[in-house]
C-alpha cells in the first residue's frame, strides 16, 4: 500500500522521465539519484509514455548525462529517458562545420568546439550555459581531440552531452583528415 501512497502525479517542474521494467528498479533509482543530489519525483508515467512498469522517476532533463552516469555506477537498470513535454523532439544529432583556415569549428546543438587541423589541438570551446561547461572549457583546451577528456565522462548536463558530440565528430574528422 505504501507504494501506492508514494506515487504522485507529474509535477510542473520536471521535464524528463526515466522509465523502468520493474518497480524495484524505479525505487532504487529514486534512492540513488536523491543521494547524488538530483531533484526527483516518483510518478506514474502518462499512458502514452508507459513502458514496463507503472512507476517512473521524473527528473530535470538537463541533468540527463549525470543521471545516466549515476545509474551506471550503481547498476540501476532503466529502459529509457524521455522528454515529458508533448511534441518534444529527440536529442539533436545534427553537426555543423565552419572552416576557419587552419582551424575548424564543430557545432553540435548549442555547443561549439574548435581545433587546429594539423595538430588536432583544441583551441576553444564556446556556447552553452550549464555550470559544467566552463570547467570543460578549461579541461579541454590545449589537449588534442584524441587526448582530451570526454565531456560525457566528466560533465553532468545536456550542454556537456552536446559538447561530447562535437568532440566525437572532431575525432572522426581528425582521423580521416577531412576538415574542409
Amino acid at each position: 500500500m505504501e507504494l501506492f501512497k508514494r506515487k504522485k502525479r507529474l509535477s510542473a517542474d520536471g521535464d524528463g522521465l526515466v522509465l523502468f521494467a520493474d518497480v524495484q528498479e524505479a525505487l532504487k533509482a529514486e534512492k540513488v539519484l536523491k543521494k547524488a543530489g538530483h531533484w526527483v519525483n516518483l510518478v506514474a508515467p502518462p499512458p502514452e509514455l508507459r513502458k514496463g512498469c507503472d512507476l517512473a522517476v521524473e527528473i530535470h532533463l538537463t541533468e540527463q548525462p549525470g543521471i545516466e552516469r549515476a545509474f551506471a555506477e550503481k547498476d540501476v537498470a532503466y529502459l529509457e529517458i524521455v522528454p515529458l513535454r508533448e511534441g518534444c523532439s529527440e536529442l539533436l544529432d545534427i553537426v555543423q562545420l565552419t572552416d576557419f583556415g587552419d582551424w575548424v569549428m564543430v557545432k553540435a546543438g548549442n555547443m561549439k568546439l574548435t581545433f587546429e587541423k594539423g595538430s588536432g589541438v583544441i583551441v576553444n570551446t564556446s556556447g552553452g550555459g550549464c555550470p559544467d561547461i566552463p570547467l570543460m572549457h578549461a579541461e579541454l583546451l590545449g589537449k588534442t581531440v584524441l587526448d582530451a577528456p570526454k565531456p560525457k565522462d566528466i560533465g553532468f548536463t545536456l550542454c556537456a552531452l552536446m559538447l561530447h558530440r562535437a568532440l566525437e565528430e572532431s575525432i572522426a574528422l581528425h582521423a580521416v583528415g577531412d576538415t574542409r
Partner: protein
Amino acid sequence: MMIIAGTVPDKAMPLAVGTVDADGDWLVVDGRSFPCTQGTGAMVSAALAVCDYLKLERPTAVIAGDIGEGKGSRAIYEHLIANVKSLAPEVLALHYWLPDMAQTKELCEAVEKCDTRPIMVADAASMYSAKASGMAPRFDVFTPDATEMAFLADPVATHPAYINRHLFDTDVTRTPDLIGAAYENGGAARLLLVKGAMDYVVRDGEIIETIEEPSVPVLEAIGGTGDTITGLVAAFACAGLELHEAAIIAAKANRMAGKMAGPTPATRVVEIIRQFPAVFQQYLCEWSGACCIEGGRSD
C-alpha cells in the same frame, strides 16, 4: 546597484556575495577569487569594465562553485529568492546555473514583491530555465545566439539539446521568423539581443536594429564572447541607457573589442575584455550620443 548571479567552475567555492574587485585577470568577491574565463567570469569582467569606465558603482556578484552537480546553483537561487527584495537591485542579471524551473518561478515571484522591480536580464542556462518555466515574458532582456533563438522559438523544448531539428537547421537569414515564433509562444523576453553574424535587437517582437560591423567571424569560436555581451548590456542598462540602446552599444562594443584584439579562433576571451576601455574611450561618445557621461563613483 547591479547584481550578477551565476556559478563558477570551482566545486569548493561556497556562496559568495559582495562587490566585485579585479586582481589582474582574476576577479575577487568576498575574498574569493575566480578566473576571468568563459562563463560568469567573462560576463562579470565586461560589466566591471563598463562600471569602471563610467565610474559607476561596481557590480555586486552572487556566485557559488558548481561543476554541474547543482549544489552551488541551488545556493544562488535560494539566496536570491530570500534576499532580492532587501537587496533592491536596479538590474538583476542571471547567468550560468543548473536550470531549475520551480526555483526560477519562485525567484520571479520574489522579484514581483520588490518595491521597485529590477531590470531582469538572463543569458546562458538562466535563460533556458526562464523560457522552460514559462517565465520568459517576465524578463526584460535575453541574449541568445542563433541556436538558442531556435530554442526560444520551439514551443516545447526545455533545453537547446532538444529543439526541433527543423528549427536548428534554419538558415540564419530566417532568424526573423524564429523571433516571431518566440514572441508568439511566450518564449521571449521583452527585448532580445540575438547574437550572430548579424546581431538583431528586438523590442516586443519588432526588429529595431541590426548590427553587422565590424565583422569578426572568429568571435563565434571564442568561449566567453557571448557572455561579455550580456555583461555589457546589463551594465549599460544600469548606467541609465534605454534597454535597446544598451543592447545596440553592447553589440557594437563587443565586435569592436574583438576586432582590436586581432583574434584567431585560439584567442582567449580575456584578450578581448582587455580592449574594452580603449573601445569605450574611442567610440562610446559617438555611439551613445552622450559625450559627457559622468559616473557617480569616486576612487
